[in-house]
C-alpha cells in the first residue's frame, strides 16, 4: 500500500510542485470516519484554507499535518518528505492553536522565545529576534506582560509570533480569528494576509467562515463530512462551483432544474421549467444533450425591475418579500414553475423609501453566462 503510494507520487504524471501533499488520507476515530479519502496538494508560499462547517474534519486534517494525529491510511508529504512516523516536534511546521495556548506561567517575551531554546542562540541575538517579532505583531511594549493581562487579539498575535519566530516551512492556523469580535477580526484578516506576504511562509488556515476564506486565501478546499468537495481559487469556487453542496455552502445560490437542449461552441442551451431557456459557457466538461442538470445563479447577478419587456433572459414574477440591509436589499421573488422563491440582491443606489409593496409584479433579467451549470447532484 505504502510503496504503491510513494511510487504514485514519484510518477512524473502525478508529481507536482506541491509543497504539502496529502495523499488519499483516511482517519478513523474508532468506527467513526472523520476524514474520508482526502487528497490535496498545497503549493509553496500559498495561503491555503480549509473551509467547512463545524465537525467536518478541518481540525483533524490540520492536526494530522502537525503530527498530533496519525492518518489511519494514506500519507502526508511535506517538502518531499513522508511524514508518517515523524513526531510533531521534528516536523517543519508550527501551529497556531484555536485556543492560542499561550503559556500562562511565562511572560510575552518568554512565550515568543519558547521554541528558540534548541537553537542555542546568544542572549542578545535571541532578544533581538523577540524584539523584531514584537514589532512585527505591533506589540512592542508588551514583552513583560503575563498571558492573563492580554486581550484575545493580543494573545492571537503572540501565538502567531511564537510560531513565526521559528521560521517554519508551514504555519498551520486553526480558526485563529474565531474568538475575536467582528471588527478586530476584519483588521486581523488584513494583517494576517499582509504578514503572510511578508514572511512568505505557506499558511494552511482553517475556518468555517466562508467570507474569511474568500478574503484571505489563494486557494480553498471546501470540506464536508470528512471529504474535500472542491479545491479551487476563491473566484472559481464562487463563480463556478462544481456541485450544489459547494454552491450552497459558499454564498447564496438560486437553483433551477433543467435539461440540456443544445451544445453550441463551448456553451450550452439549457431548457428550464420556470425561467425559459438560458445560455451559458460555465458548464462541466462532459455534458450531453438531453441530460438533466441544475442551473444556478447568484442573487447579485439578477436584475430586478418593475417595468418589464418580454424577450430572452427575462422572466416575470411577484415580489414576495424584501429585506433592507442598508447598502443593499434582498428581494424574494416567486416565479411560476419554480418551487423556491428566487433570491435577488441589489445595491441601494437610490435612497430607499421603505415601501417595497408586496405582491407587485416585477421582472428579473440576467446576462448570458451569468448562470452556471452544475452536474446534477
Amino acid at each position: 500500500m505504502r510503496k504503491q503510494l510513494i511510487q504514485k507520487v514519484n510518477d512524473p504524471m502525478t508529481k507536482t510542485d506541491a509543497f504539502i501533499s496529502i495523499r488519499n488520507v483516511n482517519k478513523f476515530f474508532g468506527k467513526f470516519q472523520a476524514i474520508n479519502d482526502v487528497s490535496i496538494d498545497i503549493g509553496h508560499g500559498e495561503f491555503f484554507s480549509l473551509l467547512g462547517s463545524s465537525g467536518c474534519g478541518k481540525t483533524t486534517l490540520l492536526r494530522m499535518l502537525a503530527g498530533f494525529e496519525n492518518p489511519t491510511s494514506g500519507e502526508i508529504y511535506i517538502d518531499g518528505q513522508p511524514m508518517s512516523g515523524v513526531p510533531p516536534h521534528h516536523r517543519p511546521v508550527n501551529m497556531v492553536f484555536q485556543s492560542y495556548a499561550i503559556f500562562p506561567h511565562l511572560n510575552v517575551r518568554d512565550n515568543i522565545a519558547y521554541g528558540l531554546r534548541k537553537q542555542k542562540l546568544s542572549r542578545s541575538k535571541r532578544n533581538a529576534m523577540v524584539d523584531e517579532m514584537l514589532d512585527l505583531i505591533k506589540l512592542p511594549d508588551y514583552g513583560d506582560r503575563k498571558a492573563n493581562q492580554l486581550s484575545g487579539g493580543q494573545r492571537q498575535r503572540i501565538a502567531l509570533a511564537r510560531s513565526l519566530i521559528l521560521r517554519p516551512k508551514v504555519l498551520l492556523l486553526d480558526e485563529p480569528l474565531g474568538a475575536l469580535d467582528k471588527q478586530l477580526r476584519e483588521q486581523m484578516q488584513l494583517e494576517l494576509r499582509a504578514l503572510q506576504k511578508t514572511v512568505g511562509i505557506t499558511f494552511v488556515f482553517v475556518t468555517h467562515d466562508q467570507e474569511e476564506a474568500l478574503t484571505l486565501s489563494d486557494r480553498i478546499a471546501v470540506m464536508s463530512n470528512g471529504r474535500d468537495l472542491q479545491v479551487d481559487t476563491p473566484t472559481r469556487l464562487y463563480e463556478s462551483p462544481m456541485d450544489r453542496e459547494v454552491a450552497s455552502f459558499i454564498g447564496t445560490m438560486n437553483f433551477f432544474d433543467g435539461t440540456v437542449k443544445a451544445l453550441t461552441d463551448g456553451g450550452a442551451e439549457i431548457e428550464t421549467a420556470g425561467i425559459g431557456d438560458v445560455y451559458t459557457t460555465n458548464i462541466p466538461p462532459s455534458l450531453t444533450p438531453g441530460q438533466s442538470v441544475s442551473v444556478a445563479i447568484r442573487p447579485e447577478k439578477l436584475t430586478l425591475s418593475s417595468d418589464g419587456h418580454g424577450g430572452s433572459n427575462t422572466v416575470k414574477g411577484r415580489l414576495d418579500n424584501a429585506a433592507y440591509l442598508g447598502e443593499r436589499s434582498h428581494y424574494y421573488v416567486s416565479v411560476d414553475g419554480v418551487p423556491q422563491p428566487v433570491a435577488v440582491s441589489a445595491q441601494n443606489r437610490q435612497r430607499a423609501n421603505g415601501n417595497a409593496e408586496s405582491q407587485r409584479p416585477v421582472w428579473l433579467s440576467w446576462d448570458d453566462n451569468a448562470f452556471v451549470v452544475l452536474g446534477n447532484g
Partner: protein
Amino acid sequence: MRGQDIPMPNQTALLPNTVRFRTLLQRSETTRGFALLSPTLLIMTVGILIPIGILVAMSFWTQVGFDFDTTLTTKNYQLAMDRPIYGALLRRSLWMSGMATIATVILSYPMAYFVAFHIHRNKMMWIVLITLPFWTSYLLRVFAWKVVLGYQGVINSALMALGLIDAPLEFLLYSQSAVVITLAHAWAAFAILPMYVSLEKIDKSLLEAATDLGDGPVARFLRITLPLSLPGVISACLLIFIPTTGDYITPTLLGGPDGAMIGNLIQKQFGAVNNWPMGATLSIILILSIGAISLSFMAFANFVRKRIS
C-alpha cells in the same frame, strides 16, 4: 440573576421584615460571603482558637502534683530551650517528616500524573481506588507495615528464603527509615489528590503547543507540566509535612528508640509524665516551628515559581 431577588414594591408592603432582611443580606457581596462562611467560622473559632487559647495559657502555668499553679511564668519555655533532648527531638521530627514529605511527593507525583494524563475513562474510580487505603484505620495500616518490615516480616523472610541475606535486616524495623516509609504510604492520598487536581487542570493544548514548538517529552515536562503543577506540589508538601511532624502513632509502633519524635514526648507529658503545662509548651513550640518552616517553604516556592517563569 439578582434582578429576581429584588422585591417588587407591593411585595415589600406585604412582607416587610423578611424581605428587607433578605435584601440587606443580598445587597453586599461581603455580607453574603460572611453569611456563607458563618458555620465554618463558628466551628473554626470553637474548634481551633479556643483549644489553642487554652494551650497557650497552660504553657505559662506550672504543674503542681495533680493541680496547676496558674501564675504565669516562662519557666517551661526556659526548660525547653535548656534541655538538649527537646531540641534534638524537635529537629529529628522536622527532619523525618521532611524526608517523609519528599518521599511521598516524589512517589505520588507519577501516580497523579498517570491518572491525570493517561486515564480517560473512569477517572472517578481511580480516585476512589487511591483513597482505598484510607478506608481502614490508620492504626491498622501502621500495623500492616510492621508485618511487612518486621524481623520475621514479609521482606526479611522473602530475602532470607531467596538466600540473599543470612540474618534479618535490622534497620527495616524500629528505625527512622521504617517511620519514613510508613508515613509515605499512609499519607500518599493526601499528596496524590492535590497534585492530580493541578495536573488535571493543565490545558492539554499547552502541552501540544510545547511539543509543536520543538520540545521533546522531557523538556516539555520540565518547562510546562512541572511549573504548572507546582501549586499542587506545594499543597501536597504542606498537607503532609504539617500533620506528620506531630505524629506519635507511627514512631511509637515502628520507630524504636532512634525513631522517636516530638509527638511521643508531647504525648508522654499529657500521659505518663503528667506535666500538661510542659506538654502545652512543647506543642506551642512545635506549632511555631511548623509555621515558620511552612512560611519559608511557601516563600521559597513562590520565589522558584517566579524564577522559572
